[in-house]
């Protein structure tokens, strides 16, 4: 019985290993097997502005490729990849013209729109594989943190208008609470980090990221927690520029969700790729 394929996405492959290392380590500790989907290719997200059909083609091709290798589901730890898969499926179900164009594009590789893997994200996977109780039982180091959770646009609104985002957020909070992390509401929690605006308006993108960091600081929470590599890039890698865009100086530690889970599971910070975070994560006692 084939298990679960994993599609990492361009950001991970172009050097954002903090996400990959921590996802692999956490899933290994939880006893969840994943197999790398090969070859890995673009999910289509960056070319949405250029051509909708082509970007949906790239997203759906990942689902079709994964299905052709016998996987029913494909884990997409990158929120943008996960969103692209879901959005393309929505577009497909409503537009005959799109499905015709993509079927045609698929034909030369023998892929089919009738056989697509189902995309799942990390929260759904962990919730289903071990659940909050199972996770609680594996905790080695209850974190006792109050974090500024940044769910991000593409996790919260992967299926816009369906209410799915709030359900996912509730599951995520249950998982966090299982590892001793409280994620209260803070002003701006649902706001955008500016990641997608980076392509066209870098100044405004940095202001959005800076406002997010400022909101996290002002709410006196311990750190920011993100799910998406695009958010991580804006809030962690570009933190200095983002802070100066809003006239702030105080740095904010930024962790990936699987890094946070990994710390609670007692995994060595080095194995969670924490040396690749640029933000002041050493301020957190759980990291030291």
């Amino acid at each position, binding site marked *: 019985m084939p298990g679960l394929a994993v599609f990492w996405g*361009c*950001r991970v*492959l*172009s*050097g*954002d*290993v903090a996400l990959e*290392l921590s996802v692999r380590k956490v899933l290994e500790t939880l006893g969840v097997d994943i197999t*790398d989907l*090969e*070859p*890995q*290719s*673009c999910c289509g*997200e*960056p*070319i*949405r*502005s*250029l*051509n*909708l*059909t*082509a970007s949906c*083609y*790239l997203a759906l091709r990942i689902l079709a490729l994964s299905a052709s290798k016998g996987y029913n589901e494909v884990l997409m730890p990158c929120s943008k990849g996960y969103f692209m898969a879901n959005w393309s499926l*929505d*577009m497909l*179900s*409503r*537009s005959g*013209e799109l499905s015709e*164009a993509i079927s*045609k*594009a*698929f034909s*030369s*590789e023998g892929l089919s729109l009738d056989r697509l893997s189902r995309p799942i994200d990390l929260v759904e996977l962990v919730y289903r594989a071990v659940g909050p109780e199972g996770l609680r039982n594996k905790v080695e180091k209850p974190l006792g943190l109050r974090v500024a959770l940044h769910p991000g*646009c*593409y996790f*919260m*609104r992967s299926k*816009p*208008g369906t209410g799915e*985002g709030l359900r996912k957020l509730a599951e995520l909070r249950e998982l966090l609470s299982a590892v001793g992390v409280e994620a209260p509401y803070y002003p701006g929690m649902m706001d*955008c980090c*500016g990641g*997608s*605006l*980076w*392509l*066209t*308006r870098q100044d*405004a*993108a940095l202001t*959005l990221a800076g406002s997010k960091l400022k909101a996290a600081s002002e709410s006196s929470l311990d750190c920011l927690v993100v799910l998406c590599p695009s958010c991580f890039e804006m809030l962690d890698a570009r933190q200095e520029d983002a802070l100066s865009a809003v006239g702030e100086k105080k740095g904010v530690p930024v962790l990936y969700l699987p890094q946070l889970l990994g710390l609670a599971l007692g995994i060595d910070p080095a194995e969670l*790729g924490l*040396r*690749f975070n*640029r933000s002041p994560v050493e301020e957190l006692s759980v990291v030291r």
Partner: protein
Amino acid sequence: MSGLTDLMTMAKPNEALKARIIALLARGPDMCLQCGRCTSGCTAFRLLELKPHEIVCSAKMGFVEELVSSKSIWDCALCLKCAERCPQEVSPYELILSLRNEAISKGLEIPEALRDILMTLMETGLAFKPKKAVDREGKAYGREELGLPALRTGLSEQALMALMELLGGA
């Protein structure tokens, strides 16, 4: 609607262009009631000359050329709040992307960052070139040094052909 005239620009609705813009959209503009919920939650509100509900309204009425050449479509943060909030299942997000597609295919605008991504995509099958990870001290690590498996990347020749055909047809 063909009797309408935009009194600011004296433009007439262009139904053929509208049809092309909304042909692929899962959640097109026609059901819009102009309630303004999209605009009330818009991330890029302060940047936009034309607000999301105005963009949807213009598109619905067939005044599309002005939108295609408008700066506003490039200021959208693509945050999806508009699509999430709409009670009528309209997605200003999708409409804005489709308008961007049209602007690019007309040669009106192509952001430089997007041009770079397209080159990399054609060359490597990825949007960003695979590269070593650099830690906070500036030290670079290859995948094997981090205990990560080598991963094959890229698009097959057939997929690349199919992609180019789709892009060329735009």
